[in-house]
């Protein structure tokens, strides 16, 4: 097997390359190298951006965190500022693969609200849901690369849970991330994200709206879990059945919400 491989010196050069022809971009390679070994992308040259240090940064400013696309998962884990502002992100990152995968793998688009795509002379920025089209499908064009991702500092209450068939190196059966603030006995700014139970990561928006609509009660938590389970559209595969996944959404969302009861009480 032979392949064509180019390693640009800086982002400018990378963008020029991308404009001239179609490449397969290589960052940490933890996904791509597996795909290459499976014989995919046979005819595409490789553009190795892994050493572009311009894209490896974590910046926090005015309640907003911007992370360069080449920041590794391990970089995130050792970031003081993320530990303060977004423990939910780190909890999720900790569950990815193994130490080796986290040392090589980059954040790409995995956890964020906003994605910035760079192309020569222009940058476009969009919310994550607009970026994701489906499993392994995004709006990224062949002349673009992901420049950075960003999010505004999430509210204080943060919860993440991943369910796999074992602890390490397990593709998740289902996962849940939950953040919320509290005001006057209510949840404020609640976000419920569900992984592995729909074609892309989704938010349980009905459950979110319901949870903000009135002061939190135990019954509401059970109902919200039920709603989130209905908002999911899981499939059955070798890891779990759809029915089990739905049950897990219910279990994990309610479990994430129970501690809020106490916090809500204190916010009255």
């Amino acid at each position: 097997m032979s392949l064509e491989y180019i390693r640009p010196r800086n982002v400018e050069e990378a963008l020029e390359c991308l404009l001239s022809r179609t490449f397969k971009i290589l960052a940490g390679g933890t996904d791509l190298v597996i795909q290459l070994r499976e014989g995919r992308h046979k005819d595409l040259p490789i553009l190795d951006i892994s050493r572009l240090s311009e894209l490896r940064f974590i910046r926090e400013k005015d309640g907003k965190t911007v992370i360069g696309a080449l920041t590794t998962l391990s970089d995130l884990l050792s970031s003081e500022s993320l530990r303060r502002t977004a423990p939910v992100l780190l909890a999720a990152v900790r569950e990815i693969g193994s130490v080796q995968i986290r040392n090589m793998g980059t954040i790409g688009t995995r956890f964020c609200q906003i994605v910035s795509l760079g192309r020569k002379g222009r940058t476009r920025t969009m919310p994550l849901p607009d970026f994701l089209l489906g499993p392994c499908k995004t709006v990224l064009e062949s002349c673009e690369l992901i420049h950075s991702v960003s999010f505004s500092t999430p509210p204080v209450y943060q919860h993440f849970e991943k369910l796999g068939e074992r602890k390490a190196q397990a593709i998740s059966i289902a996962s849940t991330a939950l953040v919320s603030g509290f005001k006057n006995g209510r949840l404020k700014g609640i976000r419920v994200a569900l992984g592995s139970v729909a074609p892309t990561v989704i938010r349980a928006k009905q459950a979110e709206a319901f949870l903000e609509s009135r002061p939190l009660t135990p019954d509401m938590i059970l109902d919200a879990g039920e709603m989130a389970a209905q908002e999911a559209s899981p499939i059955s595969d070798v890891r779990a059945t759809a029915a089990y996944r739905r049950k897990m959404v219910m279990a994990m969302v309610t479990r994430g919400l129970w501690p809020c009861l106490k916090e809500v009480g204190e916010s009255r």
Partner: protein
Amino acid sequence: MEPRILGKGVSKVDGVKLVTGRGGFTDDFAIPGMLYARTLPSPHAHARILRIDASKARALQGVRAVLTHEDVPRIPFTTAGQGYPEPSPYDSVLLDRKVRFVGDRVAAVAADTLAIAERALSLIDVEYEPLPALFDPEKAMEPDAPKVHDEKDTTGIHDRTRNLAASVEAQVGNVEQGFAAADLILERTYRVPHVQQVPLEPHICISYLDEDGRLVIRTSTQVPFHCRRTVARILGLPVGRIRIIKPRVGGGFGAKQEILLEDICGALTLAAKRPVRLAMTREEEFSRSRTRHPQVIRLKTGVTKEGKLTANEMTVVANTGAYGGHALTVQCCTGSKPLSLYKCPHVKYQAHAVYTNLAVAGAYRGYGCPQGYFAVESQMDELAQALQLDPIEIRKRNMVGLGDSLPMAEVLGEGKEGFHQKIESCGLSTCIEKGAHAIGWSEKRGKPGRGPILRGVGAACLMQGSAIPGVDMGSAYIKINDDGSFNLQVGATDLGGGSDTIFAQITAEVLGISPEQVVVYSSDTDLTPFDKGAYASSTIYITGGAVKKVAELIGEQIVKVASGLLSRNQSDLRFNDGSVVAPDGASVTLAQVAQHSFYTQDQFQIQATASHMSYACPPPFAAQFAEVEVDAGTGLVRVVKFVTAVDCGKVLNPPLAEGQIEGAVAQGLGYALTEELRFDEKGRIVNPNFTDYKIFTARDMPEMKTILVETHEPTGPFGAKSVAEIGINGPAPAVANAVFDALGIRFLELPITPEKILKALKERAPQEAIA
């Protein structure tokens, strides 16, 4: 006398080269001009090959040999590497006109590169006539079921017309009488899945012709001598024209007690007259290596009010898959060992090993026992519960002990009737006591707590054997060198477990030297004497016995020379730290003895060889304890702590013994909770990779405690018994019993997955299912 070297944590003799990556594995060698081979897997579970055309593949540049069934003679054999005559049917041929499972071998190619070989495979044009496929062993036994093996030239198949590879039946006493005497009879059906050995190093071999035109095969095998004999048969060569070399091996666990690559690799070398390398991919390792026999086990037990067993009747239907290697003997062991642990006057065992068109079963650490113990040890707990006894108490009331004989082992044997067995060492009650203490049995049992996380502890008792009595033989050769070092040559097969190290220790112990003075060379059919191979927990017990004998013979020769040199009586001389010493302090070094014998007078080589076999098969005993947490919300089981207390006789090397237990426990926990090969409706494995076939990782492992309870086995070398397999038997029943303690729900089917747990919780009480 206290041993100096045995019983110590001597470092592995191959440790440095392994951890420094200097390797020595099969794939660490490349031979100039070596070709790369691949085999074509069957896409069908069951089909006849109507036409096979390899002409395009042969025409491809860089292809050096292509073999299909049209190119090779049809000589039935068994892939099982066992003593001769093998107690397994001769139901395989090198390449067949029929395929019997997805992944079955259709053709083979050797080419200049792997990529060319792959491409050549895709150019082989095969026309199949798909046949109805059998996946369910119980259906496969029905009279009108399709026949997996309908050829006339196979031998040793129990009943071809009913797809029975093997059947076995044995009885001690009369179970009808035993059930009549019972106050309580419990009957349950247990089911255990397909699991795979997953050695880290997949099967691999490299074959070539030496300068004399002899066929040399370097291979990752557990059974070099059986491999040589079987390959000779398949390729029509005299045994003396074949040499098998076993380099370092990255684990086998039974999967390499098979001849799966060496035959076709050798055939390609003969065809191309070139060195050939053939290795399995991980996917092939799952699909066409070997698995543990899935079984449906019906167990009926009678017991008195006092908890004494009156009768035990076990009926097994095992799925051997497309071929029947080990089918008889594995099923024999399911009965002979688990049904021998408890004294019971009336015991009956019946097993059928049935052909289907699924992955092939074979030898896997434990060899039928993990299946049987899951049933027996779950059943003992349920009986205890019914009688309101502590699970440990019911075991104590029934377990065998010193002086007891093992009638089931005698009537069942392993492929043929066995030999009378009497227990001459047994530390089981100490194992139970120490293990229970370490897990906190009395404080923790029966206290699940209140959801969502429920806790439980569970126990299982076990025994295994040490070698196949009256069958297994091992031998060893030693010679001295000028400097007082020794070469030890053994046919025995170190798979990573450390037998080479223990042999060095035994030699050093007898001759009063340090283990570094012993250069161990093992497993080369040209240079080392015969050995049965690494299986049946036999290597230390059998070959260790041969090494002890040969070292003692060497000792006698050395003493004789030394006595002449020192002018002292032979009987007064002792070995001490590289010298032979007389009571008055006069001494000669072993180097002086060696040099004297080589160069000075009555010159000769101090050398000896010895063999060892045994009619006794002393069982090691163990008690295993699991502590679990069950998440009632998700159904996930977390094993918090796992304790094994094991009596393996005298412990010759504690870290190696612990390593055997810990590795076995890791595999046993996978069996209990996460491992299962799954098949689609066409018989294809849907999880042939480490992403979807879940073995326990380091992060999943519980806190482990291994307690070595020493006894002295009079028939073993320095009092040793086996330790390699026993530890894999208990995790499944111990975990199932612990889950019962936590939830009050008994699981009769492995693996105990979160989905099964949630379903059972829901069936019991719909609201409780969601915590």
